[in-house]
C-alpha cells in the first residue's frame, strides 16, 4: 500500500462481460442511482452559479431556486474588485511555498530511501509525525515565535509555515516514489564514482518529474485552500483569498449572497482548473497523502 498508490487507480482492462449488451434491470438501476447522486452533488454548484448572476430584483426568498429574471455581471465585478488583490497575494504565497517544500521533500525522500544512513527509519517516523499534529497544539507558541523571528505578518509568514508544515507530506510522497526506483540505477552511479549529490542530480532528479507534479499540485491546493494559518497569521489587508472571501461573506456589510457566491467561485477557480486539467496527478496526491506510511 505504499509506492504503488502514487498514481491514479488503474483502469481495469477487463473485457465487458456478456451481460453488457443486454438490457438489464440491475444496470438501469445502477445508472439511475448514479445520476441521482450526481444531481445531489451538483445542487450547490447550481445555487452558486445561479445566485452569482442574480440582481437585487431576485432577492425574494420565493425566487431562491429560480433562474435570474435579469442576468447581471454586477456581482462578479464587485467580487473581483474586492478579491483580486488577495488573489494576487495568494499566488505570491502559494508558488514559492509549493516550490520550496517540494524541493526539500525531494531531497529528504532521496536520502531516506536511496542514500540511507543508520537511524533513517526513525528519522522518517519523526518527520511523519508532524503531519498528524493538530496545529492548534502549537499555535500559541508559534505565533510568538514568528513575531520573535521578525517575520512580517501576512504572506512572508504564511510562506514559511506552509513550507515547514508541508515537509512531512512532501517527504512522504517522494520517499515512497523513490522506493520504486530500482536500486541498480543508484548502485551503477555509485560504482561510476558519483557522489551523493551527483547521484541525486543526474540519476534521481530526472526521474522525479511525475512525483514533482503530484507534490506541487498537492502543496498548491492545500496552501491555496488553507484558512487556519491565514486566520492566525494574516489580516484581510495582507492575507490570502480564503480570508478575504470569508470577510466578504461574513463581513459587516449587508449580507449579499450574489457577491459572496461570485467570490466563492472566483476563489475556487485556480484549484478547480488544476483539478480539471491535471486530475490524474491530483488524485495521485490524494492517494499518497492518504495512505500514510
Amino acid at each position, binding site marked *: 500500500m505504499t509506492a504503488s498508490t502514487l498514481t491514479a487507480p488503474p483502469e481495469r482492462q477487463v473485457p465487458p462481460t456478456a451481460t453488457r449488451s443486454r438490457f438489464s434491470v440491475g444496470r438501469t438501476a445502477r445508472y439511475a442511482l448514479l445520476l441521482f447522486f450526481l444531481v445531489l452533488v451538483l445542487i450547490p454548484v447550481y445555487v452558486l452559479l445561479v445566485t452569482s448572476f442574480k440582481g437585487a430584483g431576485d432577492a425574494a426568498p420565493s425566487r431562491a431556486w429560480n433562474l435570474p429574471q435579469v442576468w447581471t455581471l454586477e456581482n462578479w465585478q464587485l467580487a473581483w474588485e474586492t478579491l483580486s488583490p488577495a488573489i494576487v497575494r495568494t499566488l505570491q504565497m502559494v508558488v514559492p511555498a509549493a516550490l520550496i517544500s517540494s524541493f526539500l521533500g525531494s531531497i529528504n525522500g532521496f*536520502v531516506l530511501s536511496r542514500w540511507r544512513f543508520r537511524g533513517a527509519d526513525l528519522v522518517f517516523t519523526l518527520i511523519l509525525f508532524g503531519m498528524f499534529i493538530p496545529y492548534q497544539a502549537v499555535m500559541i507558541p508559534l505565533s510568538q515565535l514568528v513575531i520573535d523571528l521578525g517575520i512580517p505578518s501576512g504572506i512572508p509568514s504564511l510562506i514559511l509555515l506552509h513550507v515547514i508544515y508541508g515537509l512531512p507530506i512532501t517527504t512522504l510522497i517522494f520517499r515512497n516514489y523513490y522506493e520504486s526506483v530500482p536500486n541498480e540505477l543508484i548502485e551503477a552511479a555509485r560504482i561510476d564514482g558519483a557522489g551523493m549529490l551527483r547521484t541525486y542530480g543526474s540519476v534521481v532528479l530526472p526521474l522525479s518529474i511525475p512525483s514533482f507534479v503530484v507534490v506541487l499540485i498537492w502543496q498548491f491546493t492545500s496552501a491555496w485552500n488553507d484558512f487556519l494559518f491565514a486566520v492566525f497569521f494574516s489580516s484581510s489587508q495582507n492575507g490570502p483569498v480564503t480570508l478575504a472571501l470569508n470577510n466578504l461573506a461574513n463581513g459587516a456589510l449587508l449580507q449579499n449572497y450574489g457577491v459572496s*457566491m461570485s467570490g466563492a467561485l472566483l476563489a475556487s477557480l485556480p484549484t478547480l482548473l488544476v483539478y480539471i486539467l491535471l486530475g490524474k496527478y491530483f488524485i495521485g496526491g490524494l492517494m499518497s497523502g492518504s495512505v500514510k506510511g
Partner: protein
Amino acid sequence: MRTYKRWLPPLLLISPTLVLLSVFVYGLLAVNVQTSMTDNHTSAQAAGVEPSVFVGLQNYLDLLGSDSFQHSLKNLLLYTVVFLVGTMAFGFLWAWLLDRPMRFEGIFRSVYLFPMAVSFVASGVVWRWLLNSNQGEQASGLNRLFQIVGLDFLQNNWWNNNSVGITAIAIPAIWQLSGYVMALFLAGFRGIPEELREAARVDGATEWKLYRHVLFPQLGPVALSAVVIIGHMSLKAFDLIMAISKPANYQTKVPAIDMYQLKASFDYASSAAVGSILLVIVAVLIIPYLVHLAREGRR
C-alpha cells in the same frame, strides 16, 4: 574516518528539515504544554509584561469541568460520528456502483470527487445559504427546496439548534469528502487481483455473492485508512464552522473554535490547554493506527 563519510553527507542534506521540524513541531509542542500549565490568562501576561506562575494541571481541570467546554467536546463527538458515517456510506456506495466497467464512469467519478478541490471557506459560502434556518414563507435554501418538492416536513432550523445543530455542519463536510472516500475504496476494489473474481465466477457465485463474500472482506485495510483520515480531519474541524455559523455561535462550537476564541481574548494558558487536549485526542486515534501499519509492513 570511513564510516562518518558514509552517514554524514546524507544527514547534512536532511538537516534543514530536521532542524525546522524539531523546532516547529517538537519544540513548540513542548512550549505549548508549558504555557498550558501557567496562569497566563491576561493580555499583560500574554505580552510578557506581567509574570505567569506554574499552576500544574489546573487549566485542564477547569476546562474539562466547565459546561462550555464539555459542550464543545460533545459537539466534536457528534460531528465526527455523522461525518464518518456519512462519508463512509456515500464513498463506499459510489465506489461499489462504479466498480464494474461502464460508460460515463469517468464523468461520475470526477463530479463526485470535485468538491474536494474546493476550500471549506468557499463551500461554506453556499452551504450557509443552503442551511438557512428560515421556514415557511421566508424559507430559502434547502428548506425552500423541500417545499418545492413537497417534503415540507423535512424543514428544520439546521445549525440553529443547541443540542444537535453541529450535525448540520457535518452535511457540507460529507458533501466535500465522500468523493475522497470513494476514490480510496475504488483503489481498494481495483487492487484486488482479477483471479479472485474469476475464481468466484467459475465457482458459480452470483454478482452479489461475489461482492459480499469475496470482495468486501478485502477492503478492510482501506476502510480503516478512510476512518482514520476522516476522523483525523474531523477532530480539527474549524474552517467550515467559521464560514457557516461564525465562531461566536455557542451551538456549533468545537475545541478548535474555543482555542481560537481564547487566544483572541488573550487567555493563552487556556487556549494552549485546549490545543494540548486536541493533540491527545488525535494521538489516541493515530498512534495505534501507525503502530498497526508498522507491524503490517514488517510482516
